[in-house]
């Protein structure tokens, strides 16, 4: 009997003691990524966990293809993570549905926005702040194949380049040796999706995709936008320095094939290009009639509106966007830090250092956001697939642009109307 009593007491004590020591709060943080990105994120999370002993962050990860499905499932089931990584394409839709916690006060008081590259589109909605930027990536930057430039004795791109010089070099670098009508080497490829090339070209031509209030598409009605589209069309069918889109079938990343002298793309491609068997460099997109414009897009961190530990979640976010978290991010080349003092940590190799100069365009407003709106994915899909017929040479560009504008406006109107109800 005594033994029984003692052992029961012991068990109860053993249960209570950990309970007492467990004043640690555990919060869940979910992000997507490939294994390397997740490894680095683990380091950031570990650094936070070790820097204090009140909060324990558990990292959960999903594959990029499944992240949004998983997130929506979890929101519906009520077990969404406390902190989540958000991309602009989904931010407004989720924020307007009340998925995120309002962190306006905290951000105003505890973060100095001026120290960051900061896109309101991925953080703010309806006058309030719901997320904090974490990293930045630019689109429309130009990658060029140094080996090809050397072989055909063309001078490397620089900050003096405009569209004329660009076409000039592209023509010299489009080579059809066996004269079968299909070049083996192409001078140029500009992606037909917004961030990679379409938007920067339209902007550099002086045009716009949406009106300033983001409620109407003007890709056809704005004559300068049409100029930009014409440029995209002409490089394929008039100057023939860029292949038709039907040729691009199966070519996931043209620059990696080594057959393209110049391509425009995202800074996030740098990681994949590092081990390419040829020498390459980065340059800004050449200046169009209205100047030089590229995209700037950022991922942000948001807090679940129904979290049990809002303050703790916020502490983690502050660390991740603070100097220590950003340093790890940049040094391990997981992403380009949004904290201005840490951005250069990412660009430690010689051939990518020139890209740093591009960031100087940020203050001048030449690195623009992607015009996120509600239903952004829906109208972007529509825009890109409708214009696609022109890029394949099936339809002339004005007709495609007109149809695209009509269809996009239909989606935009429906999306904005729904929100204002």
């Amino acid at each position, binding site marked *: 009997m005594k033994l029984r009593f003692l052992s029961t007491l012991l068990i109860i004590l053993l249960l209570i003691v950990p309970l007492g020591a467990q004043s640690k709060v555990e919060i869940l943080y979910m992000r997507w990524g490939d294994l390397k990105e997740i490894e680095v994120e683990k380091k950031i999370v570990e650094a936070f966990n070790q820097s204090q002993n009140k909060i324990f962050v558990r990292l959960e990860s999903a594959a990029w293809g499944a992240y949004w499905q998983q997130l929506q499932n979890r*929101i519906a089931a009520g077990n969404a993570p406390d902190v989540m990584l958000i991309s602009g394409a989904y931010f407004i839709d989720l924020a307007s*549905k009340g998925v995120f916690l309002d962190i306006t006060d905290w951000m105003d008081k505890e973060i100095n926005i001026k120290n960051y590259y900061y896109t309101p589109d991925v953080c703010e909605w309806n006058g309030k702040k719901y997320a904090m930027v974490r990293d930045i990536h630019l689109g429309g930057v130009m990658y060029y194949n140094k080996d090809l430039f050397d072989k055909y004795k063309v001078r490397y791109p620089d900050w003096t380049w405009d569209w004329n010089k660009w076409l000039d070099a592209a023509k010299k670098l489009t080579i059809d040796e066996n004269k079968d009508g299909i070049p083996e080497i192409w001078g140029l490829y500009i992606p037909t999706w917004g961030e990679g090339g379409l938007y920067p070209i339209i902007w550099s031509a002086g045009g716009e995709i949406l009106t300033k209030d983001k409620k109407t598409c003007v890709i056809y009605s704005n004559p300068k936008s049409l100029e930009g589209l014409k440029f995209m069309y002409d490089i394929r069918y008039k100057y023939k320095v860029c292949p038709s889109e*039907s040729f691009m*079938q*199966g070519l996931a990343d043209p620059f990696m094939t080594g057959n393209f002298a110049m391509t425009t793309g995202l800074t996030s491609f740098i990681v994949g290009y590092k081990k390419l068997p040829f020498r390459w460099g980065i340059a800004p997109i050449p200046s169009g009639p209205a100047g030089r414009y590229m995209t700037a897009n950022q991922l942000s961190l948001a807090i679940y509106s129904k979290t049990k530990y809002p303050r703790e979640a916020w502490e983690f976010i502050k660390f991740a966007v603070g100097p220590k978290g950003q340093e790890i991010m940049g040094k391990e080349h997981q992403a380009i830090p949004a904290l201005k003092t840490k951005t250069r940590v990412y660009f430690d190799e010689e051939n990518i250092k020139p890209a740093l100069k591009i960031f100087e365009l940020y203050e001048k407003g030449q690195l623009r956001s992607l015009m996120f709106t509600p239903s952004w994915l829906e109208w972007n899909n529509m825009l890109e697939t409708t214009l696609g017929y022109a890029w394949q040479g099936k339809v002339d560009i004005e007709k495609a642009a007109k149809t695209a504008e009509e269809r996009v406006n239909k989606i935009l109107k429906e999306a904005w109307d729904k929100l204002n109800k």
Partner: protein
Amino acid sequence: MKNTKASKIENIVGYIFLSPWLFGLIFFGLGPLLFSIFLAFAEWDLIVPPKFIGLGNFINLLQDDMFWKSFRNTLIFSFSVPIGTFLSLLLAYLMNRPKGIFSFLRSIYFLPSITPAVANTVVWVWLLHPTVGVVNFLLKKLFLINGPNWLGDPNWIIPSLIIISVWGGLGYDIVLFTAGLQAIDPQIYEAAEIDGANKWDVFFKITLPLISPTTFFVIVTSFIWSFQVFDISYIATNGRPDEHSLTIVYYLFQNAFQYFKIGKASAISWVLTAVILLVTYIEFKLEKKYVFYGEGE
């Protein structure tokens, strides 16, 4: 008296045998199914409780251009069923011989079923490339035809997807047909030979009826699957289908997980299910006439 008692016992035994499935249906299936039917008549954005809107989603679908286009595309794609069934039956029949090489060939044909869909589709995307692809290259060299832009031409994209999917499903269906063919009692063939029947008679009057259960199964399940095609169109269009390659389930997926229109997505899926149900019902009505179970005479 004996009959009703026996039939009563048979009823109970039947349900006992059925119970694992019934349990799964009620426990895992019923709730989600009913909820999803409800969602088809509602609007839901995941946070606020769903709002009942009656036939709103369905009316929206009637006027939705993209929906009808995806429906048309899926319908055309379902032609992969008769093509695939015919080809796999033919090949299974041709390879149904005891020599070892045929067993080896059957294993090879099964490879696409175990290779990841990504590998299968990516290779076909290259084979079908308009300028440097092997298919157009051979067409030019052997038949002097300029092959079409398989995946880029609106008229050829769905046929291309049919080719890829039929090719991918052959090995699988051949295995099923082989199992069916090899289960036919060889004595029946011997008896027919004695009676002096020729090869065509044997095939149409003996073989075909005797494997009709398998044929029926392949047709019914292939159709159900073909109407739900998603993977192939996703990979072949690089995640960006247009109005000529969008299939119903893909459109469903976009609405549910990219456009946050979960009610509409549910409505789409139930319209899809209704269509499949209708076709399957017709198939079962035909089963009574054309499918033959048991021993032949």
